[in-house]
């Protein structure tokens, strides 16, 4: 949250180091926070010393601490590669701007997760979104501008919806503090105003999290943004939106209201499933690998929504696990794509020919990340798939379980398209001199890949935290 300081530093290398230190500090802080929360429960911090209903309050429970950890960890690792990557993709004069925006966006996301105030959520949401639009527009491709514009329109509509919803709630209850809201809402929950507020918020959040069919902004935004930005956003932006969805439905409106006011359960289930199938199928037909994985992200959001729609502790746990695991997979994959971009200047599938031999470590990372997407045992993807299927079966939704597993076959298809091109075709003449990515890429990529494997083998951390968070959410809901 120290972005403005960046402006003061002039030399790009210094800025990079500074950004890295800030992000790293955030990461360490969130580890400490998580430990503390796991031991002693929710932490409350009053900003400026004002008491809760009037002042702005930061409230960190297991769920927020978990999200803080994911965001700051991914951001730190991704930043490691940033210095090398942006040299290729962003003109030198804008490097400082890049880091400023990056840190602003990071601060915004951390703020959304940490705050205990509904209006504050909106403020941070705008901070992170506005910087995100600008970051995407920094992309080398001219289509980046158009993509950023699309995102801007959709994102602003979403944010406005959320603001309207928050405003309506304030009108009804006279408070913006989340905790107070959850106490006062039940008294007025039968009114049309609250109902409208809820509907606005849900739609707004769904726009942000790119739930099918509100996902149209995402593929282009991911594909044309600078690689580092894609890696960072793919792992964090939609996750924050899912956090908001969980926070609003579970903590503020309460479970019983959320799922009786609107036919949310069936709605989310159907949209989630549709999202998984439509987006996975779309992914199969992409020729740009960034597009391909962007569609796969939409599909993965679908999985998380399916888990969420079950409104059982196991289902929610599956969602949270997948949140964590998907952040690991996608950041590894997009970072590896960044390395490919750095070396050959394109991520068209046809350009991948022969890369299996020329960039063996990068391609191996993509293969492992892909296997994780498919959900092969010993990768993180398997852990979340296991819990998702288990949760579905607990609910007795057998056909859904079959559909989920069938959908992962689609993942096999799109991952294997890349593998076949990279390993079975000779390199293109133009790319014959391409060599392995530089260490500054390989180190962060492999940190993430190893994390993919490590948390697929030693699942204690992710499962414990996800379980605690899911249970506490069910504990507080009326």
């Amino acid at each position: 949250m120290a972005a403005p300081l960046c402006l003061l530093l002039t030399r790009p290398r210094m800025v990079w180091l500074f950004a890295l230190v800030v992000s790293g500090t955030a990461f360490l802080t969130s580890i400490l926070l998580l430990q503390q929360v796991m031991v002693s429960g929710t932490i409350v911090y009053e900003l400026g010393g004002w008491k809760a209903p009037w002042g702005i309050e930061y409230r960190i429970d297991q769920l927020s601490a978990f999200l803080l950890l994911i965001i700051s960890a991914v951001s730190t690792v991704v930043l490691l590669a940033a210095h090398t990557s942006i040299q290729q993709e962003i003109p030198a004069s804008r490097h400082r701007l890049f880091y400023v925006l990056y840190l602003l966006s990071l601060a915004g996301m951390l703020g959304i997760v940490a705050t205990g105030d509904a209006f504050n959520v909106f403020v941070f949401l705008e901070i992170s979104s506005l910087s995100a639009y600008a970051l995407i527009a920094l992309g080398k491709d001219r289509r980046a501008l158009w993509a950023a514009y699309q995102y801007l329109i959709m994102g602003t509509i979403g944010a406005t919806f959320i603001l309207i919803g928050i405003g309506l709630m304030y009108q009804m209850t006279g408070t913006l503090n989340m905790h107070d809201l959850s106490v006062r809402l039940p008294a007025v929950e039968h009114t049309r105003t609250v109902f409208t507020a809820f509907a606005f918020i849900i739609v707004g959040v769904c726009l942000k999290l790119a739930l099918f069919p509100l996902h149209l902004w995402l593929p282009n935004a991911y594909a044309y943004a600078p690689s580092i930005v894609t890696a960072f956003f793919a792992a964090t932006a939609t996750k924050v939106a899912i956090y908001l969805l969980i926070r609003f439905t579970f903590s503020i409106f309460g479970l019983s209201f959320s799922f009786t006011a609107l036919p949310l359960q069936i709605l989310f289930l159907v949209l989630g499933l549709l999202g998984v199938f439509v987006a996975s199928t779309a992914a199969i037909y992409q020729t740009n690998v960034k597009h391909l994985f962007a569609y796969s992200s939409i599909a993965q959001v679908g999985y998380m929504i399916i888990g969420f729609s079950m409104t059982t502790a196991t289902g929610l746990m599956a969602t949270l696990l997948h949140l964590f695991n998907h952040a690991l997979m996608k950041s590894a994959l997009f970072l590896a794509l960044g390395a490919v971009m750095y070396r050959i200047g394109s991520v068209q599938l046809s350009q991948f020919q022969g890369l299996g031999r020329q960039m063996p470590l990068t391609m191996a990372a993509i293969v492992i990340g892909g296997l994780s997407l498919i959900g092969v045992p010993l990768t993180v993807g398997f852990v979340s798939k296991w819990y998702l299927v288990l949760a579905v079966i607990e609910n007795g939704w057998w056909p859904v379980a079959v559909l989920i597993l069938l959908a992962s076959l689609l993942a096999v298809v799109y991952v294997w398209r890349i593998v076949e091109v990279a390993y079975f075709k000779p390199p293109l003449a133009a790319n014959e001199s391409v060599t392995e990515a530089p260490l500054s890429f390989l180190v962060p990529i492999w940190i993430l890949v190893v994390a993919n494997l490590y948390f697929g083998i030693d699942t204690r951390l992710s499962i414990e935290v996800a379980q605690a968070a899911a249970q506490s959410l069910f504990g507080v809901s009326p």
Partner: protein
Amino acid sequence: MSASLTSMSLASMLQFSIILPMLATLAIVATGRKPNLREAVTISTCLVLLYFVINLYQGIKRGESISVTWWELLPGLQVSFNIEPLGMLFALIASFLWLITTVYAIGYMRDHGEHNQTRFYACFAIAIGSVMGIAFAANLFTLFIFYEILTLSTYPLVTHAGTEKAKRGGRVYLGILLGTSIVFFLLAIVSTWFVAGTLDFTPGGVFDANVNKTVAGVLLVLFIFGIGKAAIMPFHRWLPAAMVAPTPVSALLHAVAVVKAGVFTVLKVCVFIFGLDLLSVLPSTQFLLYLAGASVLLASLVAMRQDNLKARLAYSTVSQLGYVTIGALLATSAGVMGSSMHIAMHAFGKITLFFCAGAILVAAHKSKISEMHGLGRQMPITMAAFFIASLSIIGVPPAGGTWSKWFLLMGTMETEQWILMAVLMISSLLNIAYLIPIPFRAFFPGGGTSSAGIGIKEAPLASLIALCITAVGSVVLFVYPQPLYDLARAILVIPG
């Protein structure tokens, strides 16, 4: 070295039999530039592995129980290993035949001038490590992990040639194996976990006596379909597709390791997850039995029409795997014994046949059966081995296949499955029809097609030795089946 080896406890031997091949992979990659050293690493790993497995076998014979738990992957789901006779049997076969195949492969790969040999040996070692993991797995969860590793590690072997055809074959291979395992097998495992609350292999099964018969019946279907490696008929296409692989791969992986991992898993699931008592009353068992029977017959018929020798052998494997599945589903002790013995007998027989096919390819550059007339003059030893192995597959003395078919027939009689009994008999006749003409015409070409005057030109010595050993093995198993019989009988007697 040897002192430390002998002093190892059996439990650590069990662990090392899985870890060792994986470690060997690293060593193989490291020594990739020096072929002789690399092959030395592979061979010595084979020997040490075989030594471990034999020691474990003696431990089992003394009645010791050997088990190891590694760590808890998900709450309540451990990665752990435990040796029981069936797994022991499978591990013995796989580790012994790995040694033989390696000897064979060294001759074949060098003579055939294959590229990427380092990758070949490395993936081979991973595959064997996962076979050991499957054989010794103490629960379905552990088994599933190694099952998937086996699929993935054999993919580069199948597509070794790197051609368009290999790529297509690899696609079918991966698509079917990964597809069935994710959609059916994983679903079945999660459901079993949900219904029974445990995935441990337990003698007599994990389900309560009052479990819903319909649910269990559906689960059984999911399991049998999900274990795509067992190649039951609608999901058998991967096996012929995988024949684009180099012959040593086809030999070990598609006559022994991969397909046997499949039927082994079927046996494990039938005996230790469902239990024979439950199995015999499930409504879907009969349906699956007929499906397996159809698989046996149809695959045999298809095999008759194949002119490519490896394709014919592949379909013959599909048919023989059906035997094992039938035996498991019969849910009688004779059936289970027949199945487990058939795993061993068919392994020896089929690997010999594949070795011969490879030898013919290397020495005479022929892969079509119609071109093999008169080949007996040129390659007498190979063709003789082919003949013996064919006898074993058909199931007539003096070859090992006799015993397993005997028990399988007993099983069908005990349960009065007359149709299946007829299927087994007819299929044996079909075996004769598609296997025997090959060596027969090779020795007695008749007419003027004889290619006399070429003289004897056998396969490379290493390959020749390997195929002789397995052919002799088939005969030895007929004359001396006692250890095998004991192990097979112990599956149902000794708990755990």
